[in-house]
């Protein structure tokens, strides 16, 4: 098996959905020609960031083999996910790739005790052969997230706080000793005073257990805080990607610039500049159907060519940017690189 040293390799994937009935309907491209990869020997936290409708959740479902791409392929440890057919192969795969969902209270069935999921996971993945061994495995996983089996035993989801149950959710994902965790907005439903403990947990997993994390979020501030690399998505495209400090400190794509500028800073110092007028986007469907760059309608530096064809991916420093400004079409190729 050749892995090319890649843990995960996403190659030009496109996902199209039919919206509407059997006949007619429109084609919506939720993910458009997206590529990125994670190295096998260098665990990292990789963020997929974007607003609602950017395709980040669709992309995550693709990586969990919840969906199949219309075009392109996803390789995990060198294996094309679309060749996974048998149940045993699927089990083998998800043993190594585990999800953490957004709403901790929806992650577990409200009518079941949370430990049931943990014990099931341990037994289903062959981490333990009987309930007693399973309890030990589970307890270990829970200790990794700062809890213990005794604290959650006999508890229903609503009897735990949002922060606790989200940690249980991470613990469940850790039981099978996965190589990769996909966390879809894991802290957006968790209170501010509990948020950082979960965010810090992902860093701990990366550093102490060599687990890679794909962090899916709309929140650029936490993304900046925990991730190593980031990819910004807009209407199905990855418009800019690279090391998080480069992308967010010196955004190159005009969309990333707008996004960064719009995030309210938790200090009253920039009130006046934050409050200056901005152009709001067209409705979602309109931007999806746009030919060429999806941001052309709102871009302050728009050129004719932007409305004609998809921009190419251009390397700007350590960033990859999907924008004509940097492909020799723009006069001010360095426009975005000012601080």
């Amino acid at each position: 098996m050749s892995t090319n040293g890649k843990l995960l390799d996403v190659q030009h994937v496109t996902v199209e959905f039919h919206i509407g009935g059997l006949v007619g309907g429109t084609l919506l491209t939720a993910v458009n020609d997206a590529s990125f990869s994670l190295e096998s020997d260098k665990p990292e936290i990789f963020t997929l960031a974007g607003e609602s409708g950017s395709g980040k959740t669709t992309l995550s479902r693709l990586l969990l083999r919840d969906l199949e791409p219309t075009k392109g392929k996803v390789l995990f440890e060198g294996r094309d996910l679309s060749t996974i057919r048998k149940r045993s192969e699927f089990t083998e795969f998800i043993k190594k790739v585990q999800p953490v969902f957004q709403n901790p209270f929806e992650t577990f069935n409200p009518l079941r005790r949370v430990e049931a999921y943990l014990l099931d996971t341990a037994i289903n993945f062959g981490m333990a052969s009987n309930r007693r061994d399973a309890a030990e495995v589970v307890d270990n996983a829970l200790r990794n997230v700062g809890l213990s089996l005794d604290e959650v035993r006999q508890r229903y989801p609503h009897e735990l706080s949002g922060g606790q149950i989200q940690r249980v959710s991470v613990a469940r994902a850790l039981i099978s000793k996965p190589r990769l965790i996909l966390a879809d907005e894991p802290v957006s439903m968790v209170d501010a005073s509990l948020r950082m403990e979960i965010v810090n947990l992902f860093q701990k997993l990366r550093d102490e257990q060599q687990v890679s994390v794909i962090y899916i979020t709309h929140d650029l501030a936490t993304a900046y805080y925990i991730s190593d690399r980031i990819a910004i998505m807009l209407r199905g495209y990855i418009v800019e990607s690279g090391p998080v400090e480069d992308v967010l400190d010196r955004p190159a794509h005009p969309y990333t610039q707008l996004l960064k500028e719009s995030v309210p800073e938790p200090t009253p110092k920039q009130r006046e500049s934050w409050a200056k007028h901005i152009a709001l986007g067209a409705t979602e469907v309109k931007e999806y159907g746009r030919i060429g760059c999806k941001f052309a309608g709102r871009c302050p530096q728009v050129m004719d060519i932007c409305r004609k064809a998809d921009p190419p991916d251009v390397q700007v420093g350590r960033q990859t940017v999907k924008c004509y400004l940097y492909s020799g079409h723009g006069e001010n190729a360095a426009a975005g690189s000012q601080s």
Partner: protein
Amino acid sequence: MTLLSVKNLRAYYRTEVYGISRTVQAVDGVSFDLLPNEIYGVAGESSCGKTTLIKVISGNTKPPLKVLEGSVNYNFNDYKVDMLHISQDELRQNVRWKEISYVMQGSMSVLNPVRKVIETFRDIVDTHERITDKKKFLEQTRAHVNRLGLPTDVLNAYPHQLSGGMRQRVAIALATVFQPALIIADEPTTALDVVVQRGVLQMIREIQTTSGNTVLLVTHDMAVHANVADRVMIMYAGRIAEEAPTETIFDAPLHPYTQHLIHSLPMIGEKSTKASLKGAPPNLADPPGGCRFHPRCPYVMDVCRTKVPDLISVKERHRVACHLVEEGAL
């Protein structure tokens, strides 16, 4: 002159399920004033009592919610209203929407899915000022919507044809048809994307600046308060922890909870490790005694476990409820 004066408000939920009665002390001894012409921010985590507080001050107290003590008094340009004793009819006719209006949490769904936007405008306007001249009503509504920078097309649209941000702005337009003295905005941008959120908050600020009314902005997002509010009140477990002008709250917070909230916020451009508070917000059906923050407080003292700290003024317009401050330890 104050617009609203809330004194020592205590509002509990009393529920009974299968013979087990539960009392949730959602708002427990809250006092504050709203001034004319300001944006007053209320911050706090889920179930800290901020939603209950809004319910009571807007006259929406319904069982199982019950006000045990305290007073809620408004003064709308010499039209005085005692919110806890006003008759339903007067509340409905003279106060709601004429003096107090709302932009609700999840405003995206406040528009009736099967009626055009204009019909909701008509219902609300007709309720308070009978529409006699339909043409004039249409003209005025169009002008109003235009003034707020919205296209007039939205009036003839059904809600599902509008984007989330547009619906939220329509909701703001609805809330301001009568130029009310107070607009209560409850998590107005929680479900919105950052770019849209910025647009909506700008709109709220503009309206406030031009018409000089008061906005009560409730959100858990401290970053929003930092950029929009003039004064901020921090609630914790049904009580006020601290209240101060925005600059003071962010530059020199006194309550350990406020300090944590502000220092734990991640920022773009800064990667230093942010700590999390231990434990979780208390269950208000069985809150801890003394200061309700004491089980999580890094500076807890013996007195905190037994005595409820008073909300004291430390400076002009800066109040805090913490024993550390009382004893000058900070």
